[in-house]
């Protein structure tokens, strides 16, 4: 039990920041209005000279644009995310914790249109808490963050399990804890049944 208690404490201390980010993100998304009522941030437009070389695929053009614009923290756009707009221009976006950059390749004009939508603090933390190994970030700062976040996810599970063990091993008969456990777990099971 002593070792379990130590592990519980150590995991909590090492992962304090990420747990606080999870908590703040949860509260921030709770306060969001309905999707259709959300106001998108004002985009900053920029036109950049760009000529797509002949015989390239859309993916190759998107990779060139990524290198040309050098949006901080961004990764090359996957092929499935490439689109054509109503005027048949190639469009895609770079998503980073600091915001979204929507790109339109205006081949006829020899330009790129970049519309940068900055992320507020809540959106920044929300993206940060959701950035994992699956996103395969190319930027070293995000790769380092992903390792911390992955550890945070595992720590959340281990701390939940070790916390429950510590309660059962030391104060199993403690009625307020029993009541809270039944209330929380019961509410979860009822809600699961209701939504399912």
């Amino acid at each position: 039990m002593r070792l379990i208690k130590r592990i519980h404490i150590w995991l909590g201390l090492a992962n304090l920041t990420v747990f606080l980010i999870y908590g703040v993100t949860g509260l921030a998304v709770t306060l969001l209005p309905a999707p259709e009522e959300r106001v998108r941030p004002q985009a900053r437009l920029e036109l950049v000279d760009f000529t797509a070389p002949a015989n390239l695929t859309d993916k190759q053009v998107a990779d060139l644009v990524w290198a040309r614009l050098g949006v901080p923290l961004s990764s090359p756009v996957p092929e499935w995310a490439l689109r054509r707009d109503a005027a048949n221009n190639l469009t895609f976006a770079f998503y980073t914790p600091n915001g979204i950059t929507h790109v339109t390749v205006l081949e006829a004009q020899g330009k790129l249109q970049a519309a940068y939508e900055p992320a507020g603090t809540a959106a920044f933390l929300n993206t940060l808490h959701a950035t994992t190994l699956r996103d395969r970030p190319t930027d070293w700062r995000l790769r380092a963050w992903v390792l911390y976040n992955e550890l945070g996810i595992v720590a959340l599970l281990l701390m939940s399990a070790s916390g429950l063990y510590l309660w059962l091993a030391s104060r199993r008969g403690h009625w307020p804890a029993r009541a809270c456990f039944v209330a929380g777990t019961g509410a979860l099971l009822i809600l699961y049944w209701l939504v399912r």
Partner: protein
Amino acid sequence: MYRWLREIHLALGVFSFGFLVLYGVSAVQMAHFNVPVRASEARVALSGEAGGDARAVARELMERGLVRGVLREVEAGEASLRFRLERLGTVHSVTYFHDRGEALVHTRDSGLLGVLNRLHHTAGFWHESPALKAWGVFVAITSAALILLAATGIYLWSRLRNERRVGAFLLAAGLMYSLTLVWLIRTA
């Protein structure tokens, strides 16, 4: 003070245990693998009373116990009628053929993991469903509990003499690593 905070830490922890496990398990799923989806298809002969009304077709299918969920995306055509019935983790795509009085029900069920995944993404009080509104309340409670668990946990640790040295090192290392990265990312 110590005794009270220990009681609060325990109460918050055991109350939010199930929700925290849900978030942890669904986070592991999202970070590492896709939710396995079971697809099935069924042809159902209907009574014909439903006619060309999606709501009536959906009701008849529901009364037979074949589908459940919220009716969405109705597309009424001359020969057929299409709509979806959705609930967390399950989508029924229904095509009703007027001439045959038959419904083709295509179901995609992502099971327990699919529901956990969707619940992880569900928050706020703007949902129409009372169950999802109630879920939003528990998301808020769990989020606040996580912050309070961290705060009370730090206090409880600070009172343990034996754990101060290793704990202080882990706390400082974790804070330095994470806050430096948050700052570097935010200012990139």
